[in-house]
């Protein structure tokens, strides 16, 4: 082994228990100065706990050794962590939307000083300097809420720099960014890294992990799986490390061109969002639609679901032309749409599992003109069993379920309406890697039973492995058609990310 530089941060023997559950088991973790390091693991693997120990939010159990910048600590405190240059950019950013960019970036510099007056000139200068270091131009006098999420992220990074950061943690920083915004953010991370700041990147988007980081630490169930160089790593290898399972990624695509057509879309346009879209979906077929964020995929889906009105073109279901004036018409005609935003549009989080499951098919649980509680329970129990959802009680709030189980309930909610066409918009968002396979098993079974399915995803491998045909959308138009049996995954990825 060649001699590596002294680590900036070195953790040994970290243990942490919450209420009898071991959250971290004898974990060690190193960060080298100026490197981009990725911390990967499924939800609940201990990533956040580890970050909170490093930043002093939690105290590890006795026996832990933390060495940072040449000094040893038994535990950190938030004050020492901050003053010695450890900064975290949480997923929710923790910014003040009503205050100006300058105030957001530099407010820490005026905290606790005497006299307790704020010098706005120096505040502005400090903020401008931090932004210049990132190579970004923003009007520091505008309130933060005037800027979109991507710029707010940059403000959060600039704030970290004002604190003379040596080590910056970023928790899922790209979760709500578009592709070009993500590219810009990755560029900034590289700038930081070359200026000597170490960045630890927590992301479940594996493509970014491979692109940006030089080393990778994988956690699973609170234990360290290993530390790996990212060169030579593949996405599927990382998935295996994170879940401890191997996934046989075989192409599912079949030839269903003999089946009758369920949905026929011809020249569908909604200017500014999508134009001249034509395709068919047959019984038992899974049509994959992929493309970058902003390619018009969701808008197209919402038009098929009657929630947006296309300007021109035709939608035909089993040969009959459809003119939906709302999604109620679409549901009645047998179209179901699983929203990409399960938290705020797909399910009603505070309400019960049972009520979420029956909301779209209340007519099925009516007896003698009134809703029947026993019919509801039977219907729910049947779907819970059919889709293998793990629940406690039917009356528990849906928010108590894991992402994968929530998604199964969301799918059951639509299957209960007895649809002919099921549109799945990003069905694995917020679902652990290990639980995704279960979702796709269900999708495959549904297709085999004759349902026509549109599978929308911005993760190319998902459509490549699970769809019969793949439609690539770019800037609102159909860019390419792929048949997974006749092409390589790389072909589609090259086209999408070109």
């Amino acid at each position, binding site marked *: 082994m060649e001699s590596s530089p002294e680590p900036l941060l070195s953790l040994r023997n970290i243990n942490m228990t919450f209420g009898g559950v071991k959250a971290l088991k004898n974990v060690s973790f190193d960060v080298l100065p100026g490197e981009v390091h990725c911390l990967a693991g499924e939800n609940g693997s201990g990533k956040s706990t580890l970050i909170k120990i490093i930043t002093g939010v939690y105290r590890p159990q006795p026996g832990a050794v933390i060495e940072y910048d040449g000094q040893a600590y038994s535990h950190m405190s938030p004050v020492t962590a901050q003053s010695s240059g450890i900064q975290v950019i949480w997923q929710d950013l923790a910014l003040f939307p009503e205050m100006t960019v300058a105030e957001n970036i530099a407010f820490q510099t005026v905290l606790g000083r005497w006299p307790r007056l704020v010098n706005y000139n120096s505040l502005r200068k400090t903020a401008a300097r931090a932004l210049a270091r990132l190579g970004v131009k923003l009007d520091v006098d505008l309130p933060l809420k005037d800027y979109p999420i991507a710029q707010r992220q940059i403000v959060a990074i600039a704030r970290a720099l004002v604190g003379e950061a040596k080590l910056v943690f970023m928790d899922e920083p790209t979760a709500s960014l578009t592709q070009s915004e993500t590219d810009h953010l990755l560029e900034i991370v590289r700038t930081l890294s070359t200026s000597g700041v170490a960045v630890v990147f927590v992301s479940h988007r594996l493509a970014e992990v491979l692109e940006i980081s030089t080393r990778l630490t994988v956690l699973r169930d609170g234990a360290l799986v290993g530390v790996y160089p990212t060169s030579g790593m593949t996405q599927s290898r990382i998935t295996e490390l994170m879940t401890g399972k191997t996934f046989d990624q075989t192409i599912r695509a079949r030839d269903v061109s003999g089946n009758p057509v369920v949905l026929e879309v011809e020249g569908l346009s909604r200017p500014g969002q999508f134009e001249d879209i034509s395709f068919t979906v047959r019984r038992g077929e899974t049509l994959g639609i992929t493309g970058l964020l902003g390619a018009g995929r969701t808008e197209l889906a919402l038009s098929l679901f009657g929630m947006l009105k296309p300007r021109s073109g035709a939608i035909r279901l089993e040969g009959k032309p459809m003119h939906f004036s709302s999604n109620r018409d679409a549901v009645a005609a047998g179209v179901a749409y699983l929203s990409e935003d399960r938290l705020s549009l797909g399910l009603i989080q505070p*309400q019960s599992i049972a009520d979420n499951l029956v909301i779209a098919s209340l007519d099925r649980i*009516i007896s003698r003109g009134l809703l029947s509680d026993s019919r509801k329970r039977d219907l729910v129990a049947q779907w819970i069993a059919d889709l293998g959802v793990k629940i406690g009680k039917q009356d528990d709030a849906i928010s108590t379920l894991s992402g994968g189980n929530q998604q199964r309930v969301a799918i059951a909610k639509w299957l209960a309406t007895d649809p002919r066409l099921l549109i799945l918009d990003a069905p694995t968002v917020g679902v652990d890697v290990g639980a995704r396979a279960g979702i796709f098993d269900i999708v495959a079974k549904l297709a085999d039973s004759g349902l026509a399915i549109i599978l929308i995803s911005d993760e190319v491998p998902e459509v490549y492995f699970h769809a019969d045909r793949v439609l690539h959308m770019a800037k609102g138009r159909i860019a390419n058609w792929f048949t997974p049996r006749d092409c390589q995954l790389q072909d589609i990825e090259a086209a999408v990310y070109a």
Partner: protein
Amino acid sequence: MTAIVNRTRALLGPEMAGPGFALLAVLIFFGLGSPQFLSRATFGSVAFQLPELGLLTLAMLLPVLTGGLNLAITFTANIAGLTLAWVLQQNGGVDAGPVAFLLGSLLAIGAGALSGVVMGLVIAYTRAHPILVSLSMMIFLRGLGEFLTRGGDVSGFPSFLQPLGHGSILGFPVPLIVFIGCVAIWHLLLTRMKLGFNTYMIGSNIEAVRYSGINTRKVLVLVYTLSGAMCAVAGIVMLARFNSVRVGHGESYLLITVLACFLGGVNPFGGFGRVIPVFVALVVLQLLASGLNLMGANQHLATAVWGILLIAVMILRFAAGRIKFLKRKKG
């Protein structure tokens, strides 16, 4: 046996704990404090006073469950009362017949529902906040009512209306029977009908409900329409009880209805709450007022005690939640 227990528990639900506890506390406190408290007279006075506040609370409950509010309830009741009074006067005043009363009541309920339809349409289509919309409606109705009555009383109604305000059937006051009938209808609506189901769902997340293929605008319009119609029922009962209509009558009930909902375990942000606990909460409030009255306390003091009771319930609820949380953490 356990089936019965379970059924009762399902009927009452966890929201019952607060008002149930308060009911017990009030009964014990005044039962020990005043020998006349546990008597027919007390329950008689409660039974006659309960319905006005109760009917208005039912009118408030539906919008609150959707995460909204209807601040126009008392003036909607007044306008409905005026509508009935107008029909009676057009048909001979003191000599008006039952047909005129029936027609007037229908028109009154129509007027109440109309105020609800307008609010519901504005709220559903402009997405303006229900507080602002219903506040505007309240100011409009107050102005309209004061203009029509010149701020005075309207009276002179046929004598057969007396029993509706003061009479009893088999020992049960007629207003109480009307109120309990309305409680039953609301209970059925909220537990067994699609509209009720969707009312709860909208209270938690209206966009997710819309994405589920539900006509959320229709639900909102119906909720405010029913709220307005219930106000009209309250207005008719008030007309019979006071034998007159005056704009501004019952105005002080407005905020009490909101608090009665919360005392009955309704979530102030919508989505959760049941009719029966709200009913019990109303009984508690009336018993408290009557008990204090019996002990010779000033009527205004009773209102003050209501306020203290509600604050105490919030604190107790917090404490109960805290204890549950700590227990779970230990276990």
